[in-house]
């Protein structure tokens, strides 16, 4: 699974992207975020308040209950501020 991070999630995690292999039980965004928190102190810090974390799977905005699989590109970022 490819993970990509933007804005302060990127700086807190300390990298813009990484390829990880979550265990087979991780089938939703919510489960993925729970699992990611234990990857490093940076991951834990970035994901401590999910109210300000948004998620896209394969370039589409999704909610926490959306499914994720090993071939997906999952992006984590704060609420967008363009325009």
């Amino acid at each position, binding site marked *: 699974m490819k993970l990509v991070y933007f804005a302060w999630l990127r700086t807190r995690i300390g990298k813009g992207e990484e390829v990880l292999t979550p265990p087979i039980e991780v089938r939703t965004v919510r489960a993925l975020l729970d699992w990611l928190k234990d990857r490093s102190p940076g991951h834990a810090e970035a994901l401590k308040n999910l109210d300000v974390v948004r998620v896209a799977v394969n370039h*589409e905005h999704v909610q926490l209950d959306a499914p994720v699989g090993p071939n997906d590109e999952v992006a984590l970022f704060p609420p*967008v*501020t363009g*325009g």
Partner: protein
Amino acid sequence: MIRVQREDFDSGAEMMALTAGRHDIGGVVSFVGLVRDMAGGAKIGAMTLEHYPGMTEKQLGAIEAEANKRWPLSACLIIHRYGKLEPGDRIVLVITASPHRDAAFDACRFLIDWLKTKAPFWKLEDTEHGAKWVDADAKDADAAARWVEK
């Protein structure tokens, strides 16, 4: 038509190109967003716009398709810049053209409102107190909510 680019744009030239040779357009509405030197009471210098290549184009394309579904547009253009921008610089251009002005106005406002809550851009501002990621504005969410179809 959508473009995501580092370079500046020429609003007038884009409007001309969009309407050139067309005799069926009654109204053209444009919106240009600019970098301000104040944000929430704090002075800001430059800002850097980060985006998510691939998703940006996909989201802008989807928003444009939605506008075309809702209003009878003769032409439509969205240009959004990324990279380092100074106060006074142009950030975004939205142009809509339609036989009737109401459709052009509504579609242009819809496009900028939705873009602000759906297109994956993030602003990092240089303030007097250091670089700061801009927080999303609740007003933008409210503005986008106006356009949710019941």
